[in-house]
């Protein structure tokens, strides 16, 4: 089974949120682990690099971890899978972008 069609977009925007908030994958993983994340740090690292596919629930938990971690920051949010239009592929700036 290959990547879910929304997965690359979701990963790209999670990465963008992490970069903007200057949080490393290790810190994200610990928070994600703290809200019930089931996948190890190594796998999360691999996912962030596009080397590994993660189930939708785990991807959404990672997004939630990022959003809770940066709740006070002004940077971009990490999207959940149901917020990504599966038909829209790699459009850099989707309409109604959250960049305010």
């Amino acid at each position: 089974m290959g990547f879910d069609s929304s997965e690359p977009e979701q990963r790209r925007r999670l990465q963008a949120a992490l970069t903007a908030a200057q949080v490393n994958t290790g810190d994200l993983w610990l928070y994600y682990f703290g809200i019930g994340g089931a996948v190890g740090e190594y796998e999360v690292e691999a996912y962030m690099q596009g080397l590994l596919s993660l189930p939708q629930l785990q991807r959404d938990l990672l997004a939630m971890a990022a959003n809770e971690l940066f709740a006070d920051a002004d940077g971009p949010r990490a999207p959940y899978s149901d917020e990504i239009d599966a038909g829209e592929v790699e459009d850099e700036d989707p309409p109604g972008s959250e960049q305010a």
Partner: protein
Amino acid sequence: MIKKYPLDELSTALGRIMGVLLTEEKVDHAVHSLARAVRDALPGSIGAGVSILNPHALPVSSGSTDSVVERADALQYQFVQGPCLTAWATQESVLIRDVATDGRWPNWSTAVVDLPIRSVVSTPLISGGEAIGAMKIYADTPDVFEDATTALMELFAAPAATLLSHIQTAEIPERISESLQSALYSRDLINRACGVIMERHTLTEDQALQQLMREARASRSTLSEVSAALLGVAIDRPRGTSDGLR
């Protein structure tokens, strides 16, 4: 689906990830042994000390052979001047032939005038191009040390710095344990809330977690907040329980 790990094992695993396996106790032990070895190896010295400094020139860990060294060290940090701080900041060894006549650190020299300290060599501990601290030897008479002593100290400092460089700050293991405890607490809270939802709505664990996530998003709360509300408990880890886990 989620394995339960003992806290110790997780702490160790995280410590390994972050490259800080040494506990504060071991660090202190290491700098003390090093200080003793340096004093014994260098003829004429009556005391030695090793300090690891953070980027703000504050000691995070230090070891010394006697209270004179400790006192002289404390005075350096108090006045923010002295041979060790200079050695650390310039990454060059410092040789003082006579503290009484050397004018480079006037406040410090005046303050240590009553201590049996006349000759000093201080050498930076450099690892990966970065000074992580300094080690020094003292003698109670002038002109005890010479350039050869400095060279010997530098010989010592190289492997010592490599060994000690694994310790960025002595507090990291404790901080890991602190954040780990709060991660484990919230994880447990959320898992319990999932259990309640599974029971109430005959859902699978994943479905229960998805429902909690939907509720958190809809109410703009965190997953922990939603879980705590569902369980009717406080969101914060109760204080006072942490001591037992250290």
